């Protein structure tokens, strides 16, 4: 069995099972804990509206807060957008996605995708270095932060190498593609165990905060 066959076959299937089961396990484990009811009289109604407002507006904090975090905000949202655009709008990914969803969508030229991937990778590297040198981030960081950063970068690196058909150390394209898929498998397997879960947790947490602050009559 070639590296590509292994990656496309058993490795990917195992990764998907761990990814799906792990996400469900973690979400159920969090949200099935007891909820403390709030009997206090809300200062404002429209609690659901407050939650939805917070889901959107948390991305746009007021100026007096935002001015201290401009770099984190721009770089953070920047790499996410570039990363997902490179993943979702790359031509060779679409047939793969179509297998699961049954439909596809238009793509961007490869040169654009390479540029987006390079932007995402550069920003990720800058943020990783910042994490290692900034005293606040260094103190807060755990192995999860470094593992998650590395596993997020690897599909980008191997993807760039494969799509550019780089003959790295004489390795064949099929092998590079297999390695790229294996890094995706590693990302999927790690996903439920680390901070990457914020893909599913961020908006519920923002909603929760919005409801709480709406009760108190404070814009979240």
């Amino acid at each position, binding site marked *: 069995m070639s590296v590509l066959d292994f990656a496309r076959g058993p490795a990917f299937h195992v990764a998907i099972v761990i990814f799906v089961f792990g996400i469900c396990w973690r979400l159920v484990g969090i949200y099935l804990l007891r909820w403390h009811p709030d009997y206090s009289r809300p200062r404002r109604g429209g609690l659901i509206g407050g939650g939805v407002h917070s889901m959107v507006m948390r991305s746009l904090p007021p100026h007096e807060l935002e001015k201290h*975090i401009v770099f984190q905000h721009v770089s953070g949202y920047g790499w996410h957008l570039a990363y997902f655009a490179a993943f979702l709008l790359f031509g060779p990914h679409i047939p793969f996605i179509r297998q699961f969803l049954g439909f596809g969508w238009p793509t961007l030229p490869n040169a654009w995708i390479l540029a987006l991937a390079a932007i995402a990778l550069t920003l990720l590297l800058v943020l990783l270095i910042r994490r290692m040198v900034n005293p606040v981030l260094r103190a807060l960081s755990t192995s999860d932060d470094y593992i998650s950063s590395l596993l997020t970068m690897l599909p980008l690196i191997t993807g760039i190498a494969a799509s550019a058909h780089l003959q790295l150390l004489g390795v064949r394209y099929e092998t590079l593609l297999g390695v790229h898929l294996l890094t995706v498998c590693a990302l999927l397997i790690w996903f439920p165990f680390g901070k990457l879960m914020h893909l599913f947790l961020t908006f519920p947490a923002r909603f929760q905060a919005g409801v709480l602050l709406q009760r108190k009559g404070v814009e979240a």
Partner: protein
Amino acid sequence: MNATTLDAFRGGLAGLAARAPRSTLTDSERLARAKQVMHRRLGASDAAYLETCLHCGMCAEACHFYVATGDAKYTPVEKVTPLRRVYHREVGPLRWLYRLVTRDITAAELESFQELVFDSCTECGRCDLMCPMGIQISPMINIMREALTAAELAPAEFRALKAEQAATRKDLGVGRSEIAALAAQISAAGVNVPVDAARADILYFVTPLDVQLFPDSLRSAARIFNRLNASWTVLGASAELIGTGESSAEVDIPRIVAEAEQRGAKLVILPECGHAYPRMRFEAANVMGRALAFEVLSISEYIGRQITDGKLKLKPIPGKEQVTYHDPCKIGRGGGVFAEPRAAVKALGLELREMESHGRTGYCCAGGAGQFLIDRAQRLRQRAFEIKMHEADDTGAKTVVTACNSCRYNFLTGARDANWHTEVKSLLELVGNQLTD
């Protein structure tokens, strides 16, 4: 209030720590007590927050203690590390994994967090607004505080106050008799102050700071209630029941609720006190496990509503003086009371100059949540207070108005230490002095 009174009160606080009782708990007892609190209070909402944290560090930029010092240890979410570890190892869905790769917390580690959750956090909630994930850090700091208190690891000042409250039923030297004496003194000067009336629509609280430092606070509230012909009474036991150094779990909320309900109170009004307001406004119903039969308001909220409704008329202060308004964190960001005090400032004929950070994003005065009690934290408090001072200076106003007597005390002592000449005034007292004839 003159400088001598302020200095005497401050001197009294400085001596508190020496009166703290010695703890006899063993390390394992401390740990067990702290964990018991954490397990009791951790629920799905805190779990979701703890699981969502990206360790981005943005919360540091919202914290006045970090902004003032640049010291990474003051990063808000870092202050809940023991809670996070207990959650991941003993509560969370991946606890089987965390037990393999992390170690348990120790009593010594818990003790090392005393400075971080008491000296360098005022539970002001500014970090709660900054977090891009929506994580509410200050409620988790509150769990940490309660856990440390249960483990007898609260600062000595808090333990001393708690012991004195248990022994004397007085808080900072103020109990039922001191409140009754102040009420009698004000009544003798012609402003009727009923205490512990059997029936009243409004139950009004008096805090130790009102009695010890700001007696005009009660006089002004009495003038306002009497002008509105309100049926009201002071709760004689209010100082001992609210307890300056007590955590939420220690305040005798069922007794306060019973006192209000026995009198048929429709309103419980808290004085200018950021400590008492969130306890009664939001926590009391949850402690009781039911909705309260009465509404809870802060006095600034009550005044603002009466002015807006046209029931309370004020004589404007001549000269259109420029003032800035400091939102007490627990009443503003913690309770949504922003418009009402500003309506009162406007009715007083004052020109309001807002600080850059005001309303929901306002900086704390740096002494809230009992931080002002901690003697060793004075220098840190002062550095953080200076952020507020500079923001107030930038408005050009020569007077800061506020609606919390703890904030007022912090402003007065901070101004004194910094040789800052801006005046600090109480909204309640300004209103009480400008009632129409």
